[in-house]
C-alpha cells in the first residue's frame, strides 16, 4: 500500500469486523476506481433521466450520424442514439454482474459452510462441485439459450453455475481451518447448536475473502455477458447491453468505429475499477498485514 496524501481510512467498525489492521490506509488509485465505478453505476441507474433519446426509437433519417448536439455520441445503423443505448445497456450489464455475483456468493457460501463443517457431506458435495467445474460457462450458456431462449435469466444462471464451485471451494477451505480454532471448540463445549456455530463463529471468517471473490465474479460476469451477446447468444437485440451494442456495431466497424469504442470503453473501465477494488480489498485483508496488528 502506498501512503499518499490523498489516502483515506475505512471506518473503524467495518475495519474491525473484517479483521482489518487499525489505521489501514487506501492509496489514491482505489479511491479513483471507486469514484469512477460510482459514476458509471449512477449514470446507468438514472439512464431514463440522463438519456436524451429512447434507446429503441428508430430514426431512419439519422442513420450512422457523427456526434452532434442532438446525438452526443452519434447514432447507429438504425438511427438510434448511441449515448442512450450505452447508458441503458449498462443497466443490463451491471445487473448481470451484480446478480451473478450475489447469487453465486450466497449459494456458494451456504454449500461451502456445510461442506467444510460436516465431513460426510463434504465428499458428496465436492464431487458434485468438481463435475460443475468441468462445464465451461460459455458452453453451458449456449445450451441454456438453446433450451430457454436468450434472456437475462439464462445468462445469469449460466454464469452462476460455473462460479458456484469456486466459491464453495474457497468457503470450504476457510471453514476447514477455522473449525479447528479453539473458540469454535469452546462454542461446541458451551452447547451451541451446529447451525448457530456455522453462522456465528465460522461464517464471519469467510466474509472478507468472499467480498474479494465477489468483485472478480462481478467483473467476469459482465465480460461473459458481453462475449455471449457478441456471439449473438446473449440477450436479444431489442434490449441493449454493452455486449450486443458492440455485436451490432461490428458490422459497421470500418465505417464507424465509435459504435464499438464507447460501449467497449465503459465496459473496460467498469471491469478495471471493479478489479482494482477487489485487489485493494485483498491487500487490506491479507493475513500478513493483519499480523502486524499489535
Amino acid at each position, binding site marked *: 500500500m502506498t501512503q499518499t496524501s490523498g489516502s483515506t481510512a475505512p471506518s473503524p467498525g467495518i475495519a*474491525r469486523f473484517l*479483521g482489518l489492521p487499525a489505521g489501514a490506509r487506501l492509496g489514491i488509485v482505489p479511491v479513483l476506481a471507486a469514484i469512477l465505478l460510482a459514476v458509471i453505476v449512477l449514470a446507468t441507474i438514472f439512464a431514463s433521466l440522463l438519456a436524451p433519446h429512447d434507446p429503441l426509437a428508430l430514426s431512419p433519417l439519422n442513420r450512422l450520424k457523427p456526434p452532434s448536439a442532438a446525438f452526443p455520441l452519434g447514432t447507429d445503423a438504425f438511427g438510434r442514439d448511441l449515448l442512450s443505448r450505452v447508458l441503458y445497456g449498462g443497466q443490463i450489464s451491471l445487473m448481470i454482474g451484480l446478480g451473478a455475483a450475489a447469487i453465486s456468493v450466497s449459494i456458494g457460501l451456504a454449500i461451502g459452510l456445510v461442506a467444510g463443517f460436516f465431513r460426510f457431506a463434504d465428499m458428496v458435495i465436492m464431487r458434485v462441485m468438481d463435475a460443475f467445474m468441468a462445464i465451461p460457462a460459455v458452453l453451458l450458456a449456449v445450451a441454456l439459450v438453446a433450451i430457454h431462449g436468450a434472456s437475462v435469466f439464462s445468462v445469469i444462471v449460466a454464469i452462476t453455475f460455473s462460479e458456484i464451485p469456486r466459491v464453495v471451494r474457497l468457503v470450504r477451505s476457510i471453514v476447514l481451518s477455522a473449525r479447528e480454532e*479453539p473458540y469454535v471448540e469452546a462454542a461446541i463445549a458451551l*452447547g451451541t447448536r451446529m447451525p448457530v456455530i456455522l453462522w*456465528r463463529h465460522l461464517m464471519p471468517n469467510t466474509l472478507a475473502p468472499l467480498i474479494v471473490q465477489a468483485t472478480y465474479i462481478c467483473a467476469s460476469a459482465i465480460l461473459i455477458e458481453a462475449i455471449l451477446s457478441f456471439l449473438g447468444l446473449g440477450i436479444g437485440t431489442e434490449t441493449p447491453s454493452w455486449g450486443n451494442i458492440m455485436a451490432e456495431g461490428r458490422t459497421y466497424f470500418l465505417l464507424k468505429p465509435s459504435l464499438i469504442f464507447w460501449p467497449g470503453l465503459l465496459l473496460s473501465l467498469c471491469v478495471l475499477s471493479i478489479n482494482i477494488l477487489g485487489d485493494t480489498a485483498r491487500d487490506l485483508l491479507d493475513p500478513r498485514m493483519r499480523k502486524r496488528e499489535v
Partner: protein
Amino acid sequence: MSIRFKTASFEQAQDVLCIDKLSIELSTTEGARNVLDEVSLQIRRGETACLVGESGSGKSLTSLAVMGLLPAGVLKVTSGSIRLGDTDLLTRSKRELQAMRGSRMSMIFQEPMTALNPVMRVGDQILEVLKSHGGLSRGDMRRRVFAIMEQVHLPDVERVYRAFPHQLSGGQRQRIMIAMALILEPALLIADEPTTALDVTTQKQILSLISELQRQHGTAVLFITHDMGVVSEIADTVHVMRQGRIVETAPAAQLFESPRHDYTQALLRAVPSLQPRAPRPAEPRAPVLDVASLGKTYSSGGFLRKQSEKRAADAVTFQLRPGRTLGIVGESGSGKSTVARCVMRLIDPSDGSIRLGDTDITHLPPRQLRARREKIQIVFQDPYRSLNPRRKISSSLIEGPMNFGMSKDQALANATRLLEIVGLSADALDCYPHQFSGGQRQRIAIARAVAMEPDVIVADEAVSALDVSVQDQVLKLLETLQRDLGIAILFITHDLRVAAQICDDVIVMQHGRVVEHGTAQDVLVAPSHAYTRALIEAAPGRGWDFAACREISLTGAHA
C-alpha cells in the same frame, strides 16, 4: 543433588559484545515510544549471558538490534552503540552486516521448524552457510558439514544430511540450527528461547550441547529466555529486563541467592516450586468424572490406500472427585491432550468409557450430549485463539448460559459478576478480545467456562502460554474458584512445577499410556517409574527453591 551455579570469572576475558546505552523507538500512529531504554550489557569470550524478562520486556528486540534485523521503518535506534569486537555494528551497511551474520555472530530461534527451509535437505542448508562465506571446495565443505553435525551429536550423519526438516524430531532440528549457527565459529551466538518449544528431556540435552560447544569454541552466548530454571542451569551472568530496561545485572549465584531489585524478587517468587502442595484430606464423595480404559486410535489412509493406525491413548483410567485437581503430565505426543479432547467429546473415543456424574457420555448422541455439556467445560492453551476475535466479551460470556435457556438480562448480570470474580471490571463486557493481554484473555476464558456452573473444568495447558507472574495469578484464580464453587479440575500440563502447585493427584503419560498414577506427593517426590524420574531430573533448576532463594534438600532421595 545440589544445584551448582556457574562461577567462572571473566575478569580477564576480552569483550565480545558490548552494548552501550542502546535506545530503540517504536513509531506508531499515536506517536513515538521508547521500547528499549538505555540498555547496556557486555558479554565476554566464553561467557553465557542470560537475558530474562517477561513478554514485551524488550529482550528479543535487543537481540534483533545486534543482528541488524530490526524491521525497517517501524523501529529505529535513537541512541547508543553496539560493538562486536572492534566493529561498531550500527554504522555498518546492510551488506556488511549480512557478511558478518553467520561468520562473526549467529542466531538460533525458538521454533526450528519455521527457521529451516521445509523443501531443502538439512545438510544442504548447513552447506549454504559455508558457500556464502568461504572459498572452500565442495568436498571440503561437505567434510566440514559432517564434522559439525557430529559435533552437535546428530546420529547417522550421512542419513540426516539428506533428510528434510519434517523428517527429524524437534530436538534434531534444533541441533541442525545450532550446527548452522556454529559452523563458521562465530564469536557470538544469540539463542532466542531455543528450548521453549522442546520437551524437558530434549531441552536438557540441547542446553548441555550449547555449553559443550561453547567450551570447545570459546563462543560468547547471549541466551534469551523467560525460564528461571533454564537460567539457573546455564547462566554466568544474568540481566533482568523489564519494560525495555535492564533492572538488574548480577552473576548467577548472586542473583539467585540475594536478588536485589524488587522486580527480580517478584519474578523469582512467581516461579512455581517443584515441591508438591500440602495434601488435602481425602474426598469421600463419588467421582464426578470416571474414565475407564479410554483408548483413541487415529487411522490414516483409507480408500485404496494402506491403512496406518496410531494409538494416541491406550487404557487410560482415572477418577476425578468433586473439588479436586487431577494433573495429567507428559511430553508432547504423550496423548494427554487426546485424553482431554475425548473427555470433552470434541473427538470420539475408540474404546473405553467416560462417565460424567451419573451419565455415561462415551457414545451419547449429539442432542443428549449437548444437554450434558454444561457440566463439563474446557479452557484452552492459547488465549489469543480461544475467544472469537469478532465478538464482544459480553457475547462470548453469555453464549453458553443462553444456550441453556437463561434470559439475556440475567446472563449479562451473571457475566458482570463473573468478570469481577476473575479480576476484571464490568467495562470489559463491551470490549473485543484484542484489547486485552494474554493473561486477561485467559481470565475471560475461565469466566466463560465458569459461567456454565460446571462440575468439571478441563484446563488444557491453560497457563503454558503465560508469563510466570501471570501464570501464578491464573493458578491462584483457579484455586479460588475451586474452593468457592467446588469445581473439579482436570489439569493437562507439560510443566511439572505447575502440576506440583495445583494438583492433588498426578497421572504421568508416555506414548499414550499411563506410566504412573498417584498423589502429587508420591509421583513428584518419590517417583517409581523410570520415565517420571527422567522427567523430574530434566526439570531445569530443580535443586533450587527460587522463591526462598535457597537450595532444596530433596526428600525421598532417589537422585
